[in-house]
Every structure is written in structure tokens, then in C-alpha cells.
């Protein structure tokens, strides 16, 4: 009996103690699950780009355009991120699109081009992004697809060229009037006008410009004997490069050609006659294909002069200068004495031939004057860069100095620049 009592007492006490210990101790912690990384939206805002475009009445024309091409839903997608150079209604009107009604009347490809070219997909670029200050600008793809990269599944996108300087922020040559409007899935930079996608290559644009018939003929003369992309003609038509071309107008070429021909003829006794002949010969672009002048206007000379009108740089790891930059008027320096290398530097080092000198003068966010100087003078003999500057002429279609193309930008200038 005593034993049984002991057993019961002891067992119950010890069991109680044991149970207390176990209960008092915390449970084993279960193995934690993998913790997902929480990605915040591009910005702290809870409003998507699509929402703000949908709701802000000052964007109603853009909204109409985006809706028409089905882009609004994409801009509302919180898993995506965009940078939009967005023209508000005022910007549309400044570009000649007065209302949503006009959007409805435009060809849908044009509307799509306007909307998609305004959007940089997949990244948010703020005005504070230091890469925007690089010369001349930052080439970035837009949502406008123009093909597929050969041999890949990667789409070929039309590119846009934002840039930032101390005096402004631009998409191509269109100023940003209100930068860095941040929303949940990206940023809006309001632009002063529609940033229209270029429609044709420089070749198409240049060759169809009635003031550049000599330039076209000069290209043909310079390309004599050349082939492939060594031909300037081919280069101007090559869609996936970047070029900046300073295209002297017909008057500029006529002036130069007159001088060249006159100089070659005035060795004779009658200078008036020589002037008449030079005047007649330089009056048409056919002067470049006139066999009688082959010795005066050689392909090498023409090519040398034209090469001086193609801005070029040498890329890291590359061995020669190539026409690989797209410079808008607003990308040039505002201070004098800044040189820009050209295709001439493919054969002459910058130490000997520093390139062309350029200087931009701004009125507000736009460049009102853009001047270039070459090393040579006409007539020859002047000190380097001492000749009169060539002025970029206004593009009558836009009222600006630039002529943007698919593969570059050109300026019509009123003088031929001479490398020496």
C-alpha cells in the first residue's frame, strides 16, 4: 500500500513537473518560408501613368491618342515602368494638333507613332540622370517598333535622344517644360511640343530638299569609285546608324564652285570671260559630273570636303572615326571655340585637324542661332577658323534648325566648310 502510494504520488508529481517544463518551453519554430522580395513601384505614388493620363484633362489629347492606339492599358500596368515625354494639350496645339478630334482624323499609324515615340519602355529616366549630360545625348529605344534585330527576337525600336544641360532638358530638340512628374510606374516629362518620330532616312530627306541639289550631286561625285558603306550615299541611307550632317545649301556650293572654277580659268587673259564661264558652270549641280571639270573638282577633293560635313567620333575600342553621333542643335556648345571631330579625322588626327567649330545661341529653350566654322578659308590663305561662319538655316517645316531623320539629324548651312 505504501509503495503504491509512493508510486502514485511520485509519478504524478514528476509527470506534472515534466509537463510543466514542456508547456513552459516554447514550441519549435517552424522553418520559415522563403521571403519574397517586395518591389516597390518606380515611385512612391499610387497613381499609375495610365490613370493620370486618363484623369488629367490637360492630357486629354494624349489620352485620346493613347486610347486610340490601345496604349493606355499598357501605361496602367503596375508591373511595367515607362518614361514618357508627354505633350499636354498645349504642346499638341503648338504642334498643330488642336484637339482630340484631330487625333481621330489622323491616320492611326501617325497617332501610334506620336504616342509610341513618346514612351521609353522598361526604364525610368529622371532629369537628374547624369548619363543625360553626355555629349551629344542618350540614345534610348521607344515603344515604336520598326522591325526585328536580324537573327534575334529582339524588336528594333525607333530611338529617341534625350539630353540634359544646365540650361535645359530636351527630347531630341524639343524642350521639356515640366520634368520628373513621378507616378507609380514611371515618370512623365512634359514636352513643349510633340516629339514626332522621324519618317525617313537622311538620304530621303536630304535628296528631296530642293535647296540641296548640289549637295546630292556632290555626294555622287564623292562616291565615284567607292562601294558599300564607303559610299556616302549608302551611309545616308543606312537606317540603323546615327549621323549628323552639315549640308551646305545650293548657294553655298555655287559660291565655292564658282571660286574653284574661276580660279582655274583666270590664268587666261580675260578674267571677265572666266567669271562668266565659272558662273555658268557652277549654276547647276551638273557641274559635278562635267568631264571638263574632272581635274578641277576631283572626287577626292569633293569627298574630303563632304567628309568635313559629317560629324564623327571614335568609339572605345574602335580604330577610326565614324559618323556615329546624332547631334541636335541644342546639343552643341553655347561657348565659342568648341570643336567637333568629323569624318576627316579618319585620315587626319584631331591634333592636326581638330574638326569643325560650332556654337549655339539659345532663345529660351530653343536654339535661335547655330554657327559652324571650318579650318579653311575661302578664298584660301586666311588663318585657320578665321573665315566667316556658316549659319544653320531654319527648317521651314518646324521652324527649328534641325532636320531629324531616322538615322540622324542634319542642318542646312549657308557655307561650305573647308578642312584646310
Amino acid at each position, binding site marked *: 500500500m505504501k*509503495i503504491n502510494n*509512493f*508510486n502514485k504520488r*511520485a*509519478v504524478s508529481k*514528476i*509527470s506534472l513537473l*515534466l509537463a510543466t*517544463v*514542456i508547456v513552459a*518551453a*516554447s*514550441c*519549435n*519554430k*517552424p*522553418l*520559415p*518560408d*522563403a*521571403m*519574397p*522580395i*517586395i*518591389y516597390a513601384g*518606380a515611385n512612391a505614388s499610387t497613381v499609375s501613368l495610365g490613370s493620370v493620363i486618363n484623369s488629367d484633362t490637360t492630357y486629354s489629347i494624349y489620352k485620346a491618342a493613347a486610347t486610340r492606339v490601345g496604349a493606355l492599358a*499598357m501605361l496602367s*500596368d503596375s*508591373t*511595367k*515602368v*515607362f518614361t514618357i515625354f508627354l505633350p499636354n494639350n498645349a504642346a499638341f496645339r503648338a504642334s498643330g494638333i488642336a484637339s482630340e478630334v484631330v487625333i481621330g482624323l489622323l491616320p492611326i499609324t501617325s497617332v501610334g507613332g506620336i504616342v509610341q515615340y513618346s*514612351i521609353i*519602355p*522598361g*526604364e525610368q*529616366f529622371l532629369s537628374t540622370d547624369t*548619363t543625360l549630360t553626355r555629349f551629344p545625348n*542618350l*540614345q*534610348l*529605344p521607344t*515603344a515604336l517598333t520598326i522591325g526585328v*534585330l536580324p537573327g*534575334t*527576337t*529582339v*524588336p528594333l*525600336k525607333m*530611338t529617341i535622344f534625350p539630353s540634359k544641360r544646365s540650361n535645359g532638358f530636351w527630347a531630341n530638340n524639343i524642350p521639356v517644360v515640366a520634368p520628373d512628374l513621378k507616378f507609380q*510606374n514611371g515618370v512623365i516629362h512634359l514636352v513643349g511640343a510633340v516629339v514626332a518620330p522621324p519618317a525617313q532616312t537622311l538620304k530621303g530627306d536630304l535628296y528631296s530638299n530642293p535647296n540641296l541639289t548640289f549637295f546630292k550631286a556632290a555626294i555622287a561625285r564623292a562616291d565615284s569609285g567607292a562601294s558599300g558603306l564607303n559610299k556616302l550615299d549608302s551611309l545616308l541611307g543606312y537606317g*540603323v546608324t*546615327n549621323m549628323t550632317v552639315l549640308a551646305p545649301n545650293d548657294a553655298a556650293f555655287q559660291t565655292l564652285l564658282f571660286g574653284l572654277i574661276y580660279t582655274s580659268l583666270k590664268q587666261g587673259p580675260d578674267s571677265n570671260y572666266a567669271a562668266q564661264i565659272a558662273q555658268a558652270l557652277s549654276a547647276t549641280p551638273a557641274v559635278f559630273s562635267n568631264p571638263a571639270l574632272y581635274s578641277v573638282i576631283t572626287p577626292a577633293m569633293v569627298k574630303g570636303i563632304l567628309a568635313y560635313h559629317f560629324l564623327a567620333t571614335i*568609339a572605345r575600342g574602335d580604330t577610326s572615326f565614324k559618323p*556615329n553621333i546624332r547631334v541636335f542643335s541644342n546639343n552643341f556648345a553655347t561657348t565659342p571655340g568648341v570643336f567637333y571631330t568629323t569624318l576627316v579625322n579618319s585620315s587626319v588626327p584631331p591634333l592636326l585637324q581638330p574638326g569643325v567649330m560650332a556654337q549655339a545661341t539659345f532663345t529660351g529653350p530653343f536654339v535661335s542661332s547655330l554657327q559652324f566654322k571650318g579650318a579653311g578659308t575661302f578664298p584660301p590663305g586666311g588663318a585657320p577658323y578665321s573665315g566667316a561662319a556658316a549659319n544653320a538655316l531654319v527648317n521651314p517645316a518646324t521652324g527649328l534648325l534641325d532636320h531629324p531623320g531616322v538615322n540622324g539629324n542634319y542642318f542646312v548651312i549657308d557655307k561650305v566648310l573647308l578642312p584646310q
Partner: protein
Amino acid sequence: MRRIFKCVALGIMANILSVTAFAQSNTIKGNVIDSNTSEAVPAVSVTVKGSGAGTYTDDKGNFSLNPDHPLPLTLIVSSIGYTLKEVQVSSASNFITVLLSPTSILGQEVVVSATRTPSRILESPVTIERISAANIRNTASVSYYDMIGKLKGVDMVTASLNFSSPSTRGFNGSGNLRLNQIVDGMDNQAPGLNFSVGNVVGISELDVESIELLPGASSALYGPGGMNGALIINSKDPFKYQGLSFQVKTGIMNIDNRSSKASPYYNWNVRWAQKVSDKFAFKFTGELIQAKDWVADDYRDYDRLGTTGGIKAGTRETDPNYDGVNVYGDETTVDIKSAVLNQLAQAAPFYKPYVDALPASIPVSRTGYQENRILNPNTVNAKLSGELSYKLTSKTALNAAGYWGTGNTVYTGSDRYSLLNLKIGQYKIELVNPHWFIRGYTTQENAGESYNATVTTRLLNEAWKPSGGTSGWYYQYSLAFLNAKLGGASDISAHNAARAVADQGRPAAGSQQFKDIFDKVRSIPISQGGGLFVDKTNLYNVEGQYDLSQFTSNVVDILVGANYKRYELNSEGTLFADSTGKIPINEYGAYVQATKRLANDRLKLIASARYDKNDNFDGRFTPRFSAVIKVAEDNNIRLSYQQAYRFGSTQQQYINLRVAGGTALIGGVKSFAEFYHFNTNPIYAVNPALLAGNPQLFSLPKFKAETVNSFEGGYKGLLLEKRLLIDLYGYYGVYKDFITRTNVAQSVNGNINVFQDPNTVKANLNNPLISTTYSVPTNVSGDVTTYGYGLSFTYSLPHNFTISAQGSSDILSGVPDNFIASFNTPKYRAGATFSNTGFGPQNKMGFDFTYRWQDDVNYQGDFATGFIPAFQTLDAQVSYKLPAQKVLLKLGGTNILNQYYRNGFGNASIGGLYYFSIGYNLF
């Protein structure tokens, strides 16, 4: 010295040749019965007083003895757990019945391992823990090997159901290099691994007579490797433990396991021992365990750098470079920015600014497979053993024994390895005498179809779709990524879209396509671009020991011994740098121990010393000095100083293996430095400075043996009328030349620039085309200190009730920054047991409740490093005996609260296992 050898030789000869020649005139027969329960008591020692003659009772309690002494005589009848009894025998014709009275065994056990000679556990000069066959019968643990993890100061790291590794005094891991496991006198290590594969090969449960654990340094007696302890497991003598025994254990596990369905557990055990005559006995044992293994299911994201790293936030859907701890194949990582996108931007320069605007480095991992989708969960362990024992004389036996085990299990080393059809055989022949032994044995290892799960899965991905090339996975991924970005996707959305594209047609886990590729890859040796590791490394050992006390006891008791050990590394280039042939490693050593009792046995002084030499290391001399002070009867204080050392393991000497993240694990012998041109193409420490772009040259010093000087004090004694056993200890150890691994990096092209850009240095470290990260064994230049203490109380209540409690602590200090110590030991652990070996009518009922808690651990492993929270387990069993049928029924469970825990980072989560067992003739 020559004289000593002469004495030894003469002694051995005398023993062998002194064959007894007594006529078998009088055979004494009898029976031994438990006075409380009236049960027959097997394996009781029956010896003739004043003589060496003796026998044991068989499984029915009967004995038969031919005395070497004329009648009348006195028989001494003794067994652990019973009061010794002397019986007068005057006539052989009378059948003798001996009633033995049970008594408390607290503190009465005899241990051998502490001094290599028998002594009472209370008088051990060093801390020792013992598990007896009786403990095993009453344990709630599902396996006797798991009981080790419940001992004071012991940690267990469980890689899988059949692969647990005990450790003492720190440095836990799946495979403990600092603990010697000796089974029936044989070093039980898998020689290719240098540690024991748990209990895959060894003694089956019914054959275990005792387990002795020596925590702390033990090299002075057991040779190199015993830095932190020695585990000695002894089997049952077939002369003593006879008859047929079996046990069937059936259980259920994986209940409420988030990664596996509930599954059965089976454990069959059989032992048959027969004493054929007074001279010859044999035994055979077998054990088969079959179950579905625990699952390693840590799917958290791992930030890997060489063999270091840590958990970070991320899932497969939110981290393109996700590398799940137990997800394999996703260790392959490539920086798509430098590998593909930059090249693409080069070809399409109008995209260059856009590509440049993407992050400087875009590491992307391949899609992996969870462990439970690639490893076969069926785990099996089959063990067979047998022994033939022939007594050349009454005291000298010639034993031949073999132990063979095979199984499937999972091991966590530098990666997770599926040990598939692993086979290890140990074979020995020995001459054993109470005063001496000569033993030769070999361990034959065959890794079977074992493979590196991580490497195999990575290669499976490569076999399905190569990572590189313009049709490769990363090229497809990169294009799809850019495509998605150009569609406006955020980075992570673009990554997920890209992964969906690159993974199109990926073999689903478990599909026939998956199996075909996986099986093909895992069958190809690592050296030939597969995942199979071949390991046919063998170990050969001869050793001998002589106790000279019979000649020297007047002055001092002397024990001498020596051994020669030879490893033959053979992995066919899959594990070691042995593609051109086997690599032999020779080790030899000798030891001597002197014991002197003073002050009327109140003081026992023991001095031991051992010398060892390994081919690749300088010879080492290690001493041990210990003292046992008897402060009162059954109360002793022990003090010891011992030095222990270990040579680098076979792997630390010769491994040559690429692991998960591409890191090359290499050995420490100097030929590696030459082979990998460390002298001409410098290596840099992988440390914060390197990640900051400031590489620091790393000079690889000579690889030396590791040493520990350990000071220990303790007390063990019986109090309260011998009902309370107290054991406490404290130790302080100083490690010198602590062996660790450290990561170094080398540029493939000898270009330091690849380490000088902080934005890309990490991606470059993980890009095998740019750099190689080596994990090299090295010695810590400063001292590494460990210290700790332990305390246990065991109180023996009436009627076989016992309650015990214990606590212990181990602390590491002094590890230099950037060295991986892998201490992996909780600062505190505690436990309690409440048990009864027989209560109720005829003491038929019994039970055992064992509770254990351990503190959290910052676990460092070559496979993965991370935090293991504190956890507790409660094991319990209730049993019922059917004495007439000699049957023991047991219902029990381990971790019965079914609170899943892990004790090694990256290892399986262990839940409750509930079982019912029927045992027959258990003793």
C-alpha cells in the same frame, strides 16, 4: 625497452600455449533466477572463485561449468544490476538454482575506454558517459545510436534518418572529423570521408553491449582524430549472450510534414549467438531499416559566395538569382549583363545606352529543382555481421569478425550527397587476452551509385539545355529579358518573362524525360562531367596492446600499444586528386600509459603518451596526465591535462572537387599549390576587402596538424545512500593550428583587374570563365579557445524509477575574422529523463520520457551557413513484458510533440516518429 618487449613476447607465448588440460570429470549445472520476478537471467557471469574458470548463463538462465578446481568450491555469480552472490558447491550432481537480487546499478558500471583497462565508471580519470544494453532496451529512441544525442554535452547533427553524427565539445557537422568512432576495436570511419557514416555500418541494435563516450581529447590513447572525443561501441560476446533474439519495430513518420506524406517506418533486427562448446562460439546479426527519409526543405534564398553565405530575402519569382538552400541546379549563375547583353549592345550600338542603364551586374541563376523532387526518399539500411570466436586457452580467444552494411542515405558535406547503395565492410581478426591483444582489420568502402545531388542537378540542366552558346539558356533568357524590357516590363517582370521563355520544354521533375537525363548524369563520374562520385577507398590497420601490469604492478601499472594504419584513396578522380592512381597515406603510432595508485588508493595518477606520424605531417607526441582523487567512498574528483591532435582528414589532404557554386575544394598538400600555379598566378583572400575592390594577396602557409591542449576537472559521486549520482565537469581547451577552410580567389587569366571593381567583383567571383574560387584548408594562426561545463543528476527512486536532469554548455572564442570555424554548437543545452525499467505486477511495465532542449546556433557549413533556432524534443515509450514468452512490447515515439526541427543548416527537418515494437529474448 628491449626487456619489455621480451616480457611481452614471453607473456603472449605463455598464454597461447597454456592450453588447459583438466579432465572433465565434474560438470556443475544450474540456473539463475531474478528473485523479484522469477525470470531467468541470461548472460550472468558464473566463475569459480580463485580460478579463471567461468561461464555465462544462456538465454534461459542455465549454465554448465567444468571447473578447473576440485570440489568443494565457491561459485561467484554476478551480473550488472544484481547483487553479487557466492554459492558453495560440494557436489556436481546437484542442480543449482541461484536467486539474484536486483540492486541499483547507479555508478557501478565498469568502463574500459577511459584508460583502455577496466575500471569503475566512478573512478574514471576523464569524463565518460555510458549506455548499457539495459538502457537500450528501455529507451524511447528509435535507434540506439540516437541515444548518444541525449547524453550530457552531446550534440547530434542529423543529415537524414540513417545518418546522424554525434559531436562533443563543439564543431558539429554532418560527419565529425574530431571524434573517433571505434566499433569492436575498429576505427569505424569511412576512410574516403574520414568520419563514420552514422551507424550505417556497425553493430545492430540487439548486439550492442555497451556504448562508451569520452567527451574531450582522447588522442593520447586513441590516436589522431580524437580531438573532441571518442565513441566506443562494443558488441556482445557470443559466449556470454546466447540464443536467438529478434525485434520488429514498425512506425509512422512524416506526419504533418509540409514536404512529404505520412509514411511507414520499419526496423527488423535479429541476432543469433551460439556457444557450440567451451571453446567455440559464433554469432550472426542482421538489421534492416526501411523508411521514407526526412526531407530537407529549406527553400529560402541563399546568398552564396564561395563556401560561405547566408539567407537573404527572395523567392524564385522575386529574385532572378534565386538559389534555394535545398533547391539544386540553381547554383549555376551567370551575369547576363557582361555575358550576353553587353555583347548584344556591341552588335547593336543603338541599344548600348539602354543596356548601360540596366544594373551594372545582372546575375541570373538557372531554374532548380527542390530536393524532394530529385532525391529518392526511400532510405534503407541493411547491416549484417558475424563473428567466430575460438578460445585457444581459457583466456585467449581468436576472433574473426565481419561487419557489412549497405544503405541509401543523404549526407550534407560541401553539397548534399545522395549516398546510394553505399557499401562498407569491416573485417577483422584478432587475438584477445585480458592482458593483451593483437588485431588486424580492414575497412572496404564502396560509394556505390552515390552522387552529388547539387552537381548532378546542375548538369541535368546543362544536359537539357546548355547554359552557354547562342542557342543556350542564358542567351535565350537575355534576349527574352531585353525583349520584355523593351515592352515596358519592370526588371523583375522581365526576368520572369525571360525565365518562362528560356525554360520552355524544361523537364518536369518526375517526368520520364527528367528521369532519363537525371539517371544518365548521375551515372557518369564527376571526373567525366557527371555527378557520380566513386569512392573505393580502403583502410588497413594492425595494432597491438599489452598490459604489463602483471610484471610491473609492484612499481607502476604499464600499458603499451602501437598501430600502423594505411589509407588507399581511390576515387578515380571524382573526389580526390587521384585520377592517375590510388593515393596511399601511411600513419603509425605508439603509446604507453603508466598508472600508479597512492595513499592507500585514495589517489590514482595516470600518465599517457602517444607518438604518431603521417606521411603528410610532421610526427606528433601527445601526453595526457590525469589524477583521480577519492574524497570518499564512491566520490571522486578527477583532474586531467591532455593534448590531442588530428592530422588533416584524407579530404583535407587530397580532395579536388568542384562544388555547388563552382568553388574548387582542394586539399592542403603542397602539390595542389603547384598544380594550380598559386606561385605564378596569385590568389587573393575572399573577404570584405575583396568585395570592396581591394584584393589582398593570400599566402598559403604549410598545412599542419591541429592540436588542442585541454584542461579538465570533474567530480562524480554517489550521495544520499547511493541513490543520487552526480557528475559534473568543466573544461578549457586551446586549439593551436586550428584547421579550417578559407576561400581564396584567382583570376583565370592572372588579371587582378577582375577583382578591383566593386560593382562587378561578386559577379566575377561567380563566373568560372573569369575567376576561380578555391576553398583551401589552412591553419588558424592564433589560438582558438573553447570552454564549457556540464552537470547531471541521476536519482534512483524505489521500484526502478529513475529521474535525471542534465545541462551543459560549450563556448568558442578567439576565432579570427573571415575564418570558418564551424563550431556549430549551442551555448546551452539541457535535458531530463524520467523512466522506469519495471513496475507493476512482476515489474512487467516500464516507461521512459526523455526531454531535451538546445539553444540556437549560428551554423556554419560548407554547404550552407545560417541560423538554427532553439528547439526541444520529447521522446517517450511505455513497455510491457511477457516474461513467460520472453517478449517485450513497446509503444513509443521520438519527438512526440511532432514539432519539426533541424539540427544542421540545410539538413532535413525532423518530425515525430511513432512506433510499436515486439522484441523477443532481449537482454
